[in-house]
């Protein structure tokens, strides 16, 4: 304690010695109008776009509209504390957030101020919130997978590091759950995860943080929160702030995963700001630059080449649709920006198919190149099986007795595949576990298991494999491939297990 005290004393001494250093000229202005979180300011001649303004009393603002006589600024903080006639100072600082390792494991607001009561975030480096995306020369194509631990996604809609994969669906169809599973599955891995909550209910955010903590996933995660009760400008900068934090890690050569939950509310916040700033409204009252709003954000996700550290930022933006309308303005925009989408459907969800991924409409445009060979080998037929099954399923509603044997076999395979792709929440599987299960389906080893017992079969099989034949799993994990020898061993092991499973069941 004494040394601590001494430190502070010497600090103060130095401060006193250097007290009253040089002065600098700052631009000032006067608030002429304020309302709805937007202030019109006269003066501030030298102010730059996106510059932080100081309203006094610890309230900051963001200069957004630079006009001939006035500056339109968004107030980042309590808008009621700013009055007409207040003096505003420019800070010469373009909006920045703290970045670095100190943030990992923390819950912060979009300006990097802690919200979790765990003390100050101690970091000296900051990055500007708005930045130009890495250019094409320093990028590399996607070649390493992000294992989400969700069978349906890893097998059929693989996500690569540096990819932007949209998660889209109606309310409560499990969009956040998929993102959380992906974050939880990175436990003990090398991915740093950032979860940006935009305009969410505070209760839901608390729940998310609780879930991450419970599953030990906060150790590699940053949560950036701009809640539903925060002013629109805070919600507007939140994803850019999270992106800046991820970018800092990416530039250090690390791999990051960022979830924007959700960009629909982000667009709403920006629409509110734009209308209040009296920018011309376009379709659905969104301003003209709503496409650029999201494209410049998602473009910052990248995979850098080795010369630039080889880091990556994978983005999982989330979009909430209304009544499954994917052709609304914001969903179509984001679909066209991203490298594919995971489409979740309420019908499937209510049917008990969870995650409720619509395999037909979901695609990953670049992830295939990143898929591990082992998974590619076992997942190859899955997509086809499911596609054929969906076509036949409509007929099958009228009874299967009249159908020929081949069709019935196809139906059975499709049903089995659908059943196996169901997966509980917060139960991500490792890559080798996914391979084992999908291999069992693909090789026809599960054809005789009754559908209701599939889940139990899968669970017990995985337990059996890890206790009795751990070497098979290890071989797959190490080689990331499934060679002939492992395949034979695996078939043998699964058949062994089936014998015991059958006796248990009867």
């Amino acid at each position: 304690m004494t040394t601590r005290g001494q430190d502070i004393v010497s600090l103060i001494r130095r401060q006193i010695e250097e007290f009253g250093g040089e002065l600098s000229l700052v631009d000032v202005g006067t608030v002429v109008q304020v309302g709805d979180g937007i202030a019109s300011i006269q003066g501030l001649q030298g102010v730059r776009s996106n510059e932080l303004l100081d309203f006094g009393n610890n309230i900051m603002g963001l200069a957004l509209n630079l006009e001939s006589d006035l500056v339109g600024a968004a107030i980042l903080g309590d808008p009621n504390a700013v009055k007409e006639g207040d003096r505003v100072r420019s800070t010469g600082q373009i909006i920045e957030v703290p970045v670095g390792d100190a943030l990992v494991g923390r819950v912060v607001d979009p300006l990097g101020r802690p919200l979790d009561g765990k003390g100050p975030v101690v970091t000296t480096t900051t990055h500007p919130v708005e930045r130009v995306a890495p250019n094409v020369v320093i990028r590399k194509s996607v070649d390493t997978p992000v294992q989400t631990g969700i069978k349906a996604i890893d097998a059929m809609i693989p996500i690569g590091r540096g990819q932007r994969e949209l998660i889209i669906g109606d309310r409560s169809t499990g969009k956040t759950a998929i993102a959380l599973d992906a974050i939880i599955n990175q436990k003990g891995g090398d991915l740093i995860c950032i979860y940006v909550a935009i305009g969410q209910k505070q209760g839901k955010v608390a729940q998310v943080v609780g879930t991450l903590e419970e599953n030990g996933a906060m150790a590699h995660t940053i949560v950036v929160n701009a809640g539903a009760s925060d002013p629109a400008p805070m919600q507007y900068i939140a994803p850019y702030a999270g992106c800046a934090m991820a970018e800092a890690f990416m530039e250090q050569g690390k791999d990051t995963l960022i979830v924007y939950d959700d960009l629909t509310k982000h667009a709403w916040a920006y629409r509110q700001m734009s209308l209040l700033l009296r920018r011309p409204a376009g379709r659905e009252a969104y301003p003209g630059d709503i496409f650029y709003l999201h494209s410049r954000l998602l473009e910052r996700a990248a995979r850098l080449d080795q010369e630039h550290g080889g880091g990556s930022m994978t983005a999982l933006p989330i979009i909430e649709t209304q009544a499954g309308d994917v052709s609304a303005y914001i969903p179509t925009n984001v679909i066209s920006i991203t490298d594919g989408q995971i489409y979740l459907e309420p019908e499937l969800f209510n049917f008990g198919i969870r995650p409720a991924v619509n395999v037909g409409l979901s695609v990953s445009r670049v992830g295939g190149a990143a898929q591990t060979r082992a998974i590619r080998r076992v997942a190859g037929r899955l997509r086809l099986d499911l596609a054929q099954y969906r076509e036949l399923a409509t007929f099958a509603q009228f009874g299967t007795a009249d159908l020929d044997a081949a069709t019935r076999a196809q139906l059975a395979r499709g049903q089995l595949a659908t059943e196996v792709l169901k997966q509980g929440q917060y139960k991500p599987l490792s890559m080798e576990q996914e391979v084992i299960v999908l291999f069992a389906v693909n090789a026809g080893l599960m054809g005789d298991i009754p559908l209701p017992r599939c889940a139990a079969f899968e669970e017990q099989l995985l337990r059996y494999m890890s206790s009795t034949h751990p070497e098979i799993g290890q071989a797959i994990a190490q080689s990331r491939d499934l060679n002939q020898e492992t395949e034979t061993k695996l078939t043998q092991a699964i058949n062994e297990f089936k014998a015991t499973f059958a006796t248990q069941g009867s």
Partner: protein
Amino acid sequence: MAKRPSGKRYSQALFELAVDQGQPDQWAESLKFAAQTLDNAEFRALLKDAKVPSAERVKAVTAVLGDLPPMVQNLVSLLVARGLIDLLPQVAAAYEQLLDQYRGRQQVEITSAVALTQGDRQHITRFVGDLIGRDVVLTTSVDENILGGLIIQIGDRLLDGSTRARLEGLRKQLRSDVLASAG
């Protein structure tokens, strides 16, 4: 932001007229006087009242401002006729700025914790004049809250040398230094 009519354009036009007629300084006084005279909510409400014919409204203004130069009167009448009379204070302020620019002057506001002596004022005027290379028109005010030192505002720019600002800076610096050393 929606376009609102700006007082700047009117003042610019009036100023050009004034320079042509060689009376920019007198008109500045007149304009200030007009703005002060019309700084009465009830009277302004009358001047904006749509029920009163605009000719009547203009007549009311000329009755009050009869002694002013005709061009200044015309400007006020024009503003009244267009329902823009609220712009008058802005026009007057912008005119003042144009005049300062024309005369190579700069308005400078000084805030100090204690009243300044004549010598201080001269000293500051010279100092700021050298700094910006223009004649300085000084206005001073006293604010005890700044504790000491001076705040010099030159147009839209501010030079804050008050003790309060320096103490604030010290507080901020100490806090971040202590934090950094704690980390």
